[in-house]
């Protein structure tokens, strides 16, 4: 419990959330996806969100990323209030500050690797060159391949390159290895680790796989819409040391 405090006070808070709740109403039934979350995330950390399926991980991530609004409570990003922001403001927030990586890559099939990245850098303020972003994820030699010509792991790495190319302050990954075998998954995690280390991007990584938690600075466990436990890894492992 000592380690609830950030390891280094020089790192300011990026996200501060208070009393977040989320209720999905489906006719008569109410699903409480989040039941009061208090949370602070700091610049440069690699955070793993762990929890069984249905515990609210994705819901939390979506709210942080400005894709969804909480039913109650509030979230602040740096000095912007996300709760109560308009759709246009949220779009700008995502465009300028957030990189997303999805379980199913969601690349644009009609664009090459380079162009998938360029699609995002074209609308960003101070992006990397798409080629550099792809080099960062180890795909410097696959620039002109279309998604259909890439393996799953490669597609996911393109998705990561696309997410980081605009130099976002935050990288949000929802089960990025969920659709991959473990060897390929490790390659993807290595890329995320590298991005986090070299660019200092706050990285939030969802998984229901405890083995992956060892690479995090902090591990946040969700259970039934509540934070069950937060703990910092004293000695975090490198991605290539992981196995599951």
């Amino acid at each position, binding site marked *: 419990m000592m380690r609830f405090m950030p390891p280094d006070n020089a790192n300011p808070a990026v996200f501060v959330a208070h009393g977040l709740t989320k209720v999905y109403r489906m006719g008569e039934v109410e699903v409480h996806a989040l039941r009061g979350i208090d949370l602070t995330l700091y610049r440069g950390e690699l955070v793993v969100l762990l929890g069984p399926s249905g515990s609210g991980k994705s819901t939390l991530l979506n709210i942080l990323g400005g894709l969804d609004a909480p039913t109650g409570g509030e979230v602040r990003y740096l000095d912007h209030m996300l709760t109560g922001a308009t759709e246009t403001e949220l779009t700008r927030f995502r465009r300028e500050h957030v990189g997303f990586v999805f379980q199913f890559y969601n690349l644009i099939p009609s664009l090459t690797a380079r162009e998938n990245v360029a*699609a995002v850098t074209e609308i960003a303020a101070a992006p990397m060159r798409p080629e550099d972003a792809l080099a960062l994820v180890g795909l410097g030699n696959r620039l002109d391949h*279309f998604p259909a010509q890439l393996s799953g792991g490669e*597609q996911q790495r393109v998705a990561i390159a696309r997410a980081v190319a605009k130099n976002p302050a935050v990288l949000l990954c929802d089960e990025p290895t969920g659709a991959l075998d473990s060897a390929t998954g490790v390659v993807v995690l290595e890329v995320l680790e590298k991005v986090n280390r070299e660019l200092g991007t706050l990285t939030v990584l969802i998984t229901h796989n405890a083995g992956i938690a060892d690479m995090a600075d902090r591990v946040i466990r969700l259970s039934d819409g509540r934070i069950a436990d937060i703990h910092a890894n004293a000695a975090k492992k490198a991605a290539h040391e992981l196995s599951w």
Partner: protein
Amino acid sequence: MRALDRKLFRDVWHLRGQVLAIAAVIMGGVATMVMSLSTYESLTITRDRFYSEFRFAEVFVSLKRAPEPVAERLAALPGVERVETRVRAGVKLEVAGFSDPITGLLLSLPDQGEPLLNALHLRRGRMVQPWSADEVVLSDTFADAHGFQPGDTLAAIINGKRKQLTVVGVAVSPEYVYQIAPGSMFPDFKRYGVLWMGRNALAAAYDMEGAFNQVSLTLARGAIEQDVIDRVDAVLGTYGSTGAYGRSDQFSNRFLSEELKQLQTTATVFPAIFLGVAAFLLNVVLSRLIALQRDQIAILKAFGYPYLAIGVHYVKLVLLMTVLGVAGGVALGAWFGQGLSNVYMETTFRFPYLDYRLNAGVILVALGISAFAAVSGTLFSVARAVRLPPAEGMRPEMPEAYRATLVERIGLQRWFSAPTRMILRHIERRPLKSLLTVLGIACACGLMMVGNYQKGAIDFMVDVQFRQGAREDLALAFIEPTSGRALHELAALPGVDFVEGFRDVPAILRFRQYHHRAALFGIQPEGQLHRSLDSNLQPVAVPPGGVVLTDHLANEILHVKPGDLLTVEVLEGRRPVLQVPVLGITKQFLGVSAYMQKESLNALMREGNTVSGAYLAVTPGMETELYAKLHERPRVLGMVANKAAIQSFYATIGEFILFYNLVATLLAGAIGFGVVYNSARIALSERGRELASLRVLGFTRGEIAYILLGELALLTLAAIPVGFVVGVGLVGVLVVAFQNELYRLPLILTPENYAMGAAVVIVSALLSALLLWLRLGRLDLVAVLKTRE
């Protein structure tokens, strides 16, 4: 299967926008068919009923004069059932407050009892009193045009003598359902009227006491019409008969038949085009819709549903849409059909009543065609989806293989942003689908052009006919053939700028087994007023010594070509039978005619310089004065003023065209919107996930709208020129299908036609874009991040 049925209703509800758009396409096609076919059937049934209830005669003959006992000889002829003799007189009419020339036809009614044949249906007032001297019944068109009520009076110049007449009734006759003054092109209700008066009174005024100059008769059961005609001709030849003829040559009936034939063509060609296009669109749209459900089909299969059940499920889905569309189409078509029938009744056909019928067969055919189109489109896609192994169907689709487009490969790529490349590659990736979409939209454009084509075509026909061909201001007919010297007298009248004489001779033209009953027209070869036109619509002089036929008469009716010898049976004077060479073919859109040089015709008739009438150019502003002068001349019988004829033509068909354009615009618009909206909506379903991902990455609604709507815009723009080609093609089909004796439509498309075609597409696209824009606002971003169900 209860769960599947529940799925069915949910799907329908979920897809309601598309369901309605597809139903609109079907509705457009079905409504056209129901409208045309029901109108055709109703008018045909009405005509037949009217003819039989009012004892429309079967053989008619006009003659100079025969004593009444001759009728008994006719009645005794084998094959003749009933005979009725009449007196008929061409008259000039005077209506207070109306200065234009009015031509009238006075027919006798028996003074005792009902007419045996060609009975009148009284609309208002009463029949003439037996033995009354001045009572008349008016044809309703004429009465309505002038607002005559029983009790009103008008005057007639009968045989040069002025007679005051009192209107006692207004009636409709099976003989004059379609009324056109002799020598006129169009019906003109104000300037031509048919009147009936007592036999005794008319005979007294026309010097026909104890005699008749018109006979109608009906045939005995099993009698052959041509035999009876020959026998009647043999009896009446010596009494100056112009030859007996059957219903098919009876003026009103002939026009009526032509109109109905043309309506029948409308009833087959238009629905064939509309329903054909609708079926094509339905097929395209539905196959894409089903393709989108391929994961659901895979799941159903995984559950163990048999193929058949899955197929039936989707067939039910599309049949629901079809039934919805057909029901709407039948309702709309019946409504339009009644409207159209009424317009016909007001403008063209005077029936005493309308027997509107909507045949169940029509509905079944519409349902059958629509269902076939829908189900075949569906089954094809279902079969393809069913063939997929379930696991593959459920797996998120592999990214599709794209490649750089042609424009990029030739080095233009740096001009395109990533979204633009997405648009181009998406189109190129699915060339067939893009092509079908373009074709579908193009069809809507083409339909619109067909629907609006008529007005421009009619303007063009009228322009050619009256500003190139028949340029006279006034055509007048003498009571009988007259010396050419009469023209000098006419030229001397105030207000007459120019006079051309013409000679017209009633005749039957024969070639091999074909024949046509018409007037042989002798015109002045150097004529300035009345000219014949070559195929480039340039005036050409008629050469001497032979006859020149208008194209439809030569090619479609008589099947002759220049050089052939035509047999001409003259029905006037000594009734010679002549062999006349065909010298040429001229172009004419309205009616059919046979022209000769006047001198050549005079020579054939072995007469000197003789004219039957004259064409006049009139000084503007002098018309009224001139009409009054001509009216006083006893030898001048009828007059037709072209300008007035054109005006009345437009007044009558204006309503018709308005109605037609409205209907065509509505239906083509419905089809156009149905296609464009469906294409766009399906594109959204196909690419929703991709677009939502982009939204998550921070793209604005405007930016993703550009990708989706940019493609729609590009396809729409590409479809417009294709649509023009489709439109021209469809109009070409129409032109060929609609050739008839009354008119041939020219293949003329005005800039407005093109503009309307483009407009329906653009408006549909804008409307669809707006709806899509609203939908893009409701795109579920979070769903994209979720595992696929």
